[in-house]
Every structure is written in structure tokens, then in C-alpha cells.
């Protein structure tokens, strides 16, 4: 038993999970237990934890997509803008200003929004894998241009929509649980299967560690990068749908603003090195939940909004310290030395 526990403590998700539990526990104590309360209303589950899960779903989806880009030593800072594009496409179609022929069909809107995300990702992938532009520069192009494109789609207006079917993407419930959670679960399972049951995961890690050697072993480095960025674009489009369904419209200027930073941070908190190499999707998902619960709890504790960001960054510093191998070794060294002295 303790053997298994020790094994688990070496797993990449161990520390992120501990941090998440600690944050939740702290919340529970500060709130006097009300934090963990759950109510069932009309067969739907409500409560703080559910809020965190629902509000964190965008970030979880983004983290799932971006983890692999980071694992190859690249990055994708265009996801926020791609969210805006996806929301703009979907809402404009539901609204009827785009493709009036589709007469506000939600299914058509969703499919075309996802397609837009795939195209954006493909564009990034081509710039990175074929034209060989540095990932941060390549994706910066779409990060900047993307909001402009979204504005063009909505003709520069904030589009508000009225469609219960579309609202369902964020606010719906299945089996008492919020619908976005099912989206996250679906994306998660899909990616886990694909990276574990094929050699995709191994190849990504090889590329992240040494892309030249990887090419020499016959890995199609370019094609894998193309797939990764395309997938990241798709995940950003999904997040864009969730967000726009939440605010019941498309706001090109603010949709997904700066969320790419939170997404990258989620992956880093999950312990995947931004230099590339070993990665863990579950750890990134937990990283996203950590960020979401920090945001939620800082608000809940009544900290003034101006201070929120400071508190958030302080917590992040602590988490990064806990993650740092050197720090852990130093602490462990101190303890064992003390133990030796006492003995």
C-alpha cells in the first residue's frame, strides 16, 4: 500500500492534485464549510464546486489543446482570438446575419464555428511546421489578426442572440451535471486514448526533447506539429462556443481576452516543462482547475478586485516553488539533515 503511495507521489499529477486539494480545503475552512455545500434543485446539482467546474471548463478544454503544443517545445498564444472567431461565427449564424439560408440552425452554427477553429489551427500549423516560423511569433500573427477577423464577421458589433438550444452549450444539464463538463470529458478521453493507444504521445515527447534526433528516427515531425496546432485551434473553438453561450452573444473585443496566459499557466502548474518533453494531460486539467479555484475563491473571500490579480500571482509563485525540483530537494535535504542530527 505505502509502496503504491510512494509510486503515486512520483507521478506528475501528484503535486498539482495536492495543491488543488489544499486550495479547496482552505476555502472550506474559511467559509465554515459552506464551500462544500451542494444543493439539488430540479434535479440539477448546484454549489461552489460545481461553479468551479463549470466556469473552469473553458480553461480545461484550452489546456487539453495547448499541452501538446507546449510539449513539443512550441506554444500557441492565438487561442483567445480563435475563441473570439468561433463565438463570432456561431452567434452570427444563430442570429441570422451570416448564412441567412441556415435560418439560425444551431447545429450548422456549431459545426462551422468548429471548422473555423480547425482552419485557424491549420494556419498556425503551416506557419510553424512548413514555413518554420518560431511558434510564438507564428501564433502571434493570429492572436493580433484574429480579433479583427472576428470583428469583420460580426460587422464590428456585439451580437446578442436568443436561442435556448445555443444557451444549452454552457448552461444545460445532463444527469444533473452541467453540460460543459461532458464536453471536457469527451475531449479528455479522446486525447488520452489517442496519445496513449497510439505512438502519438511518445512522438510528441521525442520531438519536444530533441526534434533533430526525432527526425533521424523517422518521426514525421512536421506532420505531427501540424496535427497538434490544428487540434489546439479546434479546442479553442470549443472553448469559444462555451464562452459565447455563457454570455449569450459574441463580444469580439473581450471574448477569451488574455486567456492564453491562463491556459499556458495551467499546463506549467501541471508540471509540463515549457521547454518541451514529458507531458501529462490530466495534470494540465488539474492545473486549469487550480487556476479557476484560485479566481473563484479570491472573489468569494471578498478580496477587492484590484488585489485579486496580486493574490493570484502570489499563489502561483508558491505553486511553482512547490513544483520546482531544486526547491523540493533543498527542503528534503534540510529535513534529512535535521533527522540525522537528532538521531
Amino acid at each position, binding site marked *: 500500500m505505502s509502496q503504491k503511495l510512494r509510486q503515486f507521489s512520483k507521478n506528475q499529477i501528484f503535486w498539482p492534485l495536492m495543491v488543488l486539494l489544499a486550495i479547496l480545503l482552505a476555502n472550506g475552512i474559511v467559509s465554515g464549510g459552506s464551500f462544500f455545500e451542494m444543493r439539488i434543485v430540479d434535479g440539477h446539482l448546484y454549489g461552489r464546486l460545481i461553479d468551479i467546474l463549470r466556469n473552469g471548463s473553458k480553461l480545461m478544454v484550452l489546456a487539453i489543446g495547448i499541452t501538446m503544443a507546449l510539449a513539443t517545445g512550441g506554444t500557441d498564444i492565438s487561442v483567445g482570438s480563435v475563441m473570439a472567431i468561433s463565438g463570432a461565427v456561431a452567434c452570427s449564424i444563430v442570429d441570422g446575419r451570416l448564412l441567412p439560408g441556415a435560418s439560425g440552425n444551431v447545429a450548422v452554427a456549431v459545426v462551422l464555428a468548429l471548422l473555423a477553429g480547425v482552419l485557424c489551427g491549420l494556419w498556425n500549423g503551416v506557419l510553424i511546421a512548413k514555413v518554420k516560423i518560431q511558434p510564438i511569433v507564428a501564433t502571434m500573427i493570429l492572436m493580433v489578426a484574429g480579433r479583427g477577423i472576428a470583428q469583420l464577421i460580426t460587422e464590428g458589433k456585439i451580437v446578442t442572440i436568443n436561442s435556448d438550444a445555443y444557451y444549452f452549450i454552457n448552461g444545460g444539464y445532463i444527469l444533473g451535471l452541467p453540460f460543459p463538463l461532458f464536453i471536457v470529458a469527451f475531449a479528455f478521453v479522446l486525447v488520452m486514448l489517442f496519445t496513449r493507444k497510439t505512438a502519438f504521445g511518445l512522438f510528441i515527447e521525442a520531438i519536444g526533447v*530533441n526534434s533533430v534526433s526525432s527526425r533521424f528516427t523517422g518521426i*514525421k515531425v512536421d506532420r505531427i506539429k501540424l496535427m497538434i496546432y490544428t487540434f489546439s485551434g479546434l479546442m479553442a473553438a470549443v472553448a469559444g462556443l462555451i464562452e459565447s453561450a455563457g454570455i449569450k452573444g459574441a463580444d469580439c473585443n473581450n471574448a477569451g481576452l488574455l486567456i492564453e496566459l491562463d491556459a499556458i499557466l495551467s499546463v506549467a502548474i501541471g508540471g509540463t516543462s515549457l521547454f518541451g518533453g514529458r507531458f501529462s494531460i490530466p495534470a494540465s486539467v488539474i492545473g486549469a482547475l487550480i487556476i479557476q479555484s484560485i479566481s473563484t475563491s479570491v472573489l468569494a473571500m471578498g478580496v477587492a478586485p484590484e488585489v485579486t490579480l496580486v493574490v493570484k500571482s502570489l499563489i502561483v509563485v508558491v505553486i511553482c516553488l512547490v513544483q520546482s525540483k531544486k526547491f523540493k530537494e533543498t527542503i528534503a535535504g534540510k529535513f534529512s539533515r535535521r533527522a540525522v542530527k537528532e538521531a
Partner: protein
Amino acid sequence: MDTQEKLLEMEHITKKFPGVVALRDVQFALRRGEIHALLGENGAGKSTLIKVLTGVFERDGGDIFLEGRAVSPQSPQAAQNMGISTVYQEVNLCPNLSVAENVYIGREPGSAGRIDWKTINRKAAELLSRFDLHIDVTQNLDRYSVAVQQMVAIARAVDISAKVLILDEPTSSLTAVEVRKLFEIMRMLKARGMGIIFVTHFLDQVYEVSDTITVLRGGEYVCSSPTAELPKMQLVARMIGKEYEDLESRPSSSLADRGKRDLFLRLQGAASAQISHVDIDIQKGEVLGFSGLLGSGRSEIARLIFGVDPIVTGGLEIGGRKTAVKEPITAMRAGIGFCPENRKSEGIVGELSVRENIMLALQAKQGMLRAMSRRQSEKLADEYIEALSIKTPSREQSIHNLSGGNQQKVILARWLATAPDLLMLDEPTRGIDIGTKAEIQKLVTKLAGEGMSLVFISSEVDEMVRCCGRMVILRDKKLVGELTGEEISEDMIVKYMAGGEQFEPKTETIQ
């Protein structure tokens, strides 16, 4: 031994890694004006001893005295400041900086924060020309081959006026001419009173240049003795811990059976950006050698066949069929494997495990969707760890924690695992110890006997003579000769390589 003369002493040195005791109670003493060979099998602990001495690793026990004073350098920079200048086994210069910058990084001439580029470039060029290396020092280092990089690293270390100079396998990818140059310089430094630690697997070089030998085995000190008093057979016995018989024998089947064979691969007037117009036929079941000096184009041909540098003009036929090889994977699917010369940047995938490194090429060849199961890959890894006696605490050890020679074996295993029809080996025995080297040479002959074609590239002429059934010789990126069977001899190769009478290189006087 006069204590006055003792420059450096290490006593009771111990270093542990998870799962491995790399050094156990090791001692080592270096005198002024001495070239001291540090020898042992792959994984014996030579590099670790050097890294402990120069502050790369923290030691777990023992003392180090430099000129009688106890020292504990905390970093290579600190060691350098104390007067210990080192060339590590894996050249760790900055590939994206120019050659001149690499020579002077961390000690740039100039004043008040201004760097005097003119002086740097001029001095670097001067320094390198002492090694007969006439290259453009303003170009990025990664434009040049491993051997040139190795020379640059050596030149840099030599130029730092130090008390102790450490060279960890400096000659592993150099040809005879450069080695001679290096030895000249080492002797000159020795005459100035510098102490030099020299790690190598080439015993001939040990006898040519060293004064004293220290042998390590399995992380333990075995013996120390003046070179003249330790004959070669005894030395080898000390290194491997048992008698060793057939070092010199030529693998039996390499000369036999040289009848008409089927053609496997034909290059016709092929050219890449690096090399132009090559015509080469490779037959089934032969060991074909590519010989030549540094930059002669021997690796470039292999890279062209493997699709690393795409063919611009000319044709490539594999098994009688015209094939367009644009990427390594295309070549692999056509039955070709390539073990490249530059282990660190083109071979190993550092943080991945030994198991993953071995399975990688086979997995890529099978295709991404047909993943090998964990059990299959473990079986594969165990098989090769056993077959090539790879020294590692477990198959899950990261490959960058293995000793240099053992990393090389893992890369070799990776390509053997793909069971190619043509295997191209570029310096496959680089950094590999004497016993294993003979094993690999035997393996090459055996594989050829089983019908595999092999291309063998090595800077070590006697190894080429021993392994190859046929050999093409290159000079200045052109084929200048071909030798078959009994014609292959060290003299003939050297003559062709250097271009007949020009063989004696112009030597510049060293002040």
C-alpha cells in the same frame, strides 16, 4: 614521487547516483609536466571522476588537493578560475554562436564592457591555425562537423592558460592528422609544466603520448603505473578484469566469399546541397567503407541516401526501382537505417528512457497508429541491453544519464531493431571501449554474412581495414579511389585520402 611535483591529488572519491555507485573510494594523482591517461571500460567512471573534479557534480565523499591546498570547486567556471581547464566528452559549446565567440565566451578581450570583435576574430583564427584548422571563424559553430567542433573545444581549453588540462575523449572523432597535431600541442604544454589528464579508448594513443596510466573498473580504482611499465596486454586485462585474446584478429568471414552479388542500391550522379555528383553501387551482403579526411564528404553521402539532405539532381535506385527519398522515414520504409555521427544532437533523445530510445525508430517505421505495447517494447529493450551489454541500472533510466559509450550502444540498438536491408553506420564505435568495439566489428561482419548490406564510416583506419570488404575513398567531396578485398590496407587508404605525395601536412611552427 616528490611531493613538490604533485599538482593535483584526489583521495577516497565517492559518487553515487540513484541505482548506481559511479565512483567508490577512487584515488588519482597528477604531477606537473605529466600526461596522465585515465582509462577504463564504458561506464567505468572516468567522466564522472572528471565531473566531480570540475564541480559539475557534487561529490559524496573524498578530498581534492590542488597544489597541496584542499579545494572544492562548485562549478566548471570555478574550476576554471582555479586553473583547471576542461574539454568534456560531449562538446558543450554554443552551436548558435560563431566559432570565435565560442573560443572567447566568458573571457572576451576588450575594455569597459565593450567587446573588441576584430581582436576576437583575429585571435581565434590565429589560435585555430595552430591546429591547422583554417575555417571562417565568424560562421556559426553548428555549420561545422563534430570533429571541427571538437577541435574548437580543444583549442579553447588549451588557450586558457591553466595548470591542469583535462581532455575527455578528445580524439574520438578526429583523424590521424588532427590527432598528431593535438599530440604536438599536448607535448608542448607538458614541457611548460602543465599537467594533462587524457581519457581515451585508443590504446595506441595512450602509448604514444602518455607518461602515466591510471585504470578504473566498475567505479573503483584498479592501478596506477608509468606507461612504460605496463604492457598493452596487461593493461587490457586490468581494464576488463580478465585476459583478452583476439584483439588484433580480423573477423573471419570478411575476406571470404567475394563472388558476384546482387545490387541493392545505386546512386547515379546524385547531388545534394552538400555534395555533388556521386556514383556508388551498394551490393547485398557487403560491407562498404567510406573513407576520407574530415569534411571529405563521407558523411554527406550517407545523409543523402537517408534523405536528411534531399537529393537535388541525379537518381537513387533501391532494389532496382527508382526511389525519391525526401525524408528519413521514406528511406527507412525502403529498408535503410542510419546511425549518425553526432550522437548528442542527432542521436539520443535525452530525457527519454533507454527503452523509448531503443524502440523509437522501429515504432516510427511501423507507423504511429500501430503502437507497440508496453510489454513488446520492454522485451525489445531487454533483448538489446543484454545483446550489446548496455550498462544501465534499468531500462527506464534516462539515456542522458548513461556513460557516453553506452549511449552509443543504445543508438546502435535502435537501428538494429529495425532490421534494415542496408545499415549505414557513421562512426559507430565512437567512444566505445576496446572490448565492445571488437564485438561490434564482429557483429558488422556477421550481419553482412546474413545478407545485410552495411556502409561503414570511421576515422579509425585500422577498424576500416578490419571490417570493410570494399572501400571508396573521398577527398574534397569527390570519389578519388576504390579498393577491394586484399587491396585494402592502411597505406593505400592514407595515400588516397591525402592525395599521394601531399600526405605530409604543412606544419606551422608552434611557439
